[in-house]
């Protein structure tokens, strides 16, 4: 396999090393003011909208969206593009329904908002559990992907060597989050987003220039090289099961605004207006990036060719790096490889700090210590949680290396859309919504999404299932969203009707509504 590698692994490592050095310096400089929980979890709420918007793009554009979508378009044509549209349109839900109201009412975590006017302990515990589950699935997918990336970019074929690299990436991530907190994590994400979008932009212009800026000509070439005109229309990947794709599309478009690590980013700005500007910046950056990947995907099909991509180590994920090599030789390949590593690092860091904040703030401080932890104790617990989660992520990444766990990202979106979104929307927009409704919706959404995926062809009984050789699937779709999302919305209504006798605090409900819309009493930025 090593023989099919292109470029120079040493150069790739060197460029990545430069990225790590620069970001480490920034992280250490940024970490000077990490004293309170607001500093550690929310970067003192001191980022501007454009900065936070870039960080959101850096957090959101994971290796799956860069390497994965380019590869999917290069091999399966149009169906790869479908993914990115769902990922983008989803941001309208975050912009219109969630970002500003959440910033105005919460402090650090998603559970802050969900438990604002409901009974604290049960709702907080349930919200923390769904947060941890989503982060865990997402984290595992990223770390498992790192193994394949190592094979591709560094030419390391043995599993032991890959395990070492996964451990190094994980250890770096722990260092960033431990030292830098949310501030350090944010800077890593900003730098990565700038590099990723610039890199993809340069490659896009380059590819278009090769075809005389004639996109139609590029498409013709892609068809000619791959010998398959069907790549220009939908159907190659999902043609046999469009219901499954509809289910995936629902999860993508409704899951984004309920991803805990995305929600947490809205607390890093001083006001709701800055939260709005963050999303606007994120939408522009993410939207432009996905247009780039459309060109890059077809460009890889035309210039590199699907045969070469399929046979390269890393398979579809190698489309973008191989295209970089064809265009700019080993140097551009090195830059794109470093960006890909930076991507994993930045996304994993964002997930880890979110999970740590949820455990420490929601479970430890609010539930175990009943809202009165000793001064400084909450941040200390958060830092220990970072270490534990980091080690779990490394072990999970090593074990899952080489397994087909691509469905985990889709599952994370499905769980977010089912377990979190209904309760977020109801508690922000429906005055009569109560604790019973929240519990039914969160637990029902989580359980149905996870149970359906366990008994789906993604786990057993399919050609590409995670577990081969046994078949215990009875749910026909690989994506549970089409069942679990409406079910969770319905359970929220039914639970609310069932639990109606127990009155919630009307004063708290009024406070939440007034604060969410006006920003009265919203957490201010810290001043140092």
């Amino acid at each position, binding site marked *: 396999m090593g023989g099919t590698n292109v470029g120079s692994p040493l150069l790739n490592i060197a460029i990545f090393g430069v990225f790590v050095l620069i970001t480490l310096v920034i992280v250490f400089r940024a970490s000077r003011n990490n004293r309170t*929980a607001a500093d550690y979890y929310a970067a003192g709420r001191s980022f501007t909208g454009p900065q936070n918007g870039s960080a959101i793009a850096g957090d959101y554009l994971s290796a799956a969206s860069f390497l994965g979508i380019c590869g999917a378009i290069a091999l399966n044509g149009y169906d790869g593009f479908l993914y990115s549209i769902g990922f983008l349109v989803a941001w*309208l839900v975050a912009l219109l329904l969630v970002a500003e109201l959440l910033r105005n009412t919460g402090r650090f975590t998603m559970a*802050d908002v969900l438990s604002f006017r409901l009974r604290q302990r049960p709702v907080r515990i349930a919200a923390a559990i769904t947060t941890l589950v989503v982060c865990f699935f997402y984290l595992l997918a990223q770390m498992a992907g790192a193994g394949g990336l190592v094979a591709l970019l560094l030419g390391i074929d043995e599993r032991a060597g890959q395990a070492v690299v996964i451990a190094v990436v994980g250890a770096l991530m722990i260092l960033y989050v431990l030292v830098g907190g949310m501030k350090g994590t944010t800077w890593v994400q900003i730098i990565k987003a700038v590099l990723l979008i610039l890199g993809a932009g340069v490659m896009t212009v380059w590819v278009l220039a090769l075809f005389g800026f004639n996109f139609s000509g590029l498409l013709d070439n892609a068809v000619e090289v791959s010998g398959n005109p069907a790549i220009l*229309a939908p159907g190659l990947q999902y043609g046999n099961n469009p219901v499954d794709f509809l289910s995936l599309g629902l999860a993508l478009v409704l899951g984004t605004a309920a991803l805990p690590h995305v929600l947490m980013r809205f607390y890093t700005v001083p006001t709701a207006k800055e939260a709005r500007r963050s999303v606007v910046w994120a939408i522009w950056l993410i939207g432009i990036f996905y247009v780039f990947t459309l060109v890059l995907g077809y460009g890889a099909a035309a210039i590199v060719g699907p045969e070469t991509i399929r046979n390269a180590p890393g398979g579809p994920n190698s489309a973008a790096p191989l295209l970089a090599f064809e265009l700019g030789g080993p140097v551009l390949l090195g830059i794109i490889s470093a960006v890909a590593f930076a991507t994993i690092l930045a996304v994993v860091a964002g997930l880890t700090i979110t999970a740590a904040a949820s455990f420490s703030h929601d479970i430890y401080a609010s539930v175990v210590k009943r809202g009165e932890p000793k*001064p400084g*104790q909450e941040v200390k617990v958060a830092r220990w949680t970072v270490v534990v989660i980091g080690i779990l992520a490394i072990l999970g990444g090593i074990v899952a290396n080489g397994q087909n766990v691509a469905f985990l990202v889709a599952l994370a979106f499905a769980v977010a859309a089912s377990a979190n979104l209904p309760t977020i929307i109801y508690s922000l927009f429906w005055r009569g919504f109560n604790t019973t409704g929240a519990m039914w919706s969160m637990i029902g959404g989580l359980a149905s999404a996870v149970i359906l995926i366990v008994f789906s062809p993604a786990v057993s009984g399919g050609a590409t299932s995670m577990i081969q050789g046994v078949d215990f699937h009875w749910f026909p779709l690989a994506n549970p969203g089409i069942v679990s999302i409406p079910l969770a919305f319905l359970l929220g209504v039914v639970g609310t009707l069932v639990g109606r006798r127990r009155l919630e605090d009307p004063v708290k409900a009024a406070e939440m*509504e007034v604060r969410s819309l006006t920003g009265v*009493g919203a957490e201010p930025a810290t001043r140092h």
Partner: protein
Amino acid sequence: MGDDALGTGTSMRTVDYEAVQRTAEFRELKRRHRSFVLPVTAAALVWYLVYVVLAGWAHDFMATPVLGSINVGILLGILQVVTTFAITMIYVGYANRRLDPLAEDIRSDLEGVDPDLEPSGAR
């Protein structure tokens, strides 16, 4: 700012939120907010679902070439991106004109009542 995890945000029972909720000004803010965000979100989601359904069940229609080899599917996909950008900018304009001034009014009224409030956090 401390590490206290109690409640969500600075608790301000000194403000009578139920009274604020009943004012005409707040009701108008709520009406303006909901009458924009709810229908626009619904329309955007429906438009996205139409696109997904077309991609799932109308392959031939999506494959119809329009500009050279650029077909209906690719144009509709790009159109999704364009409408997302457009809705974003329209909402920003609406919020700046119709929501922010009203919210600022209510906020400064409340902050006038209670000098302990932190105006800097709600710029």
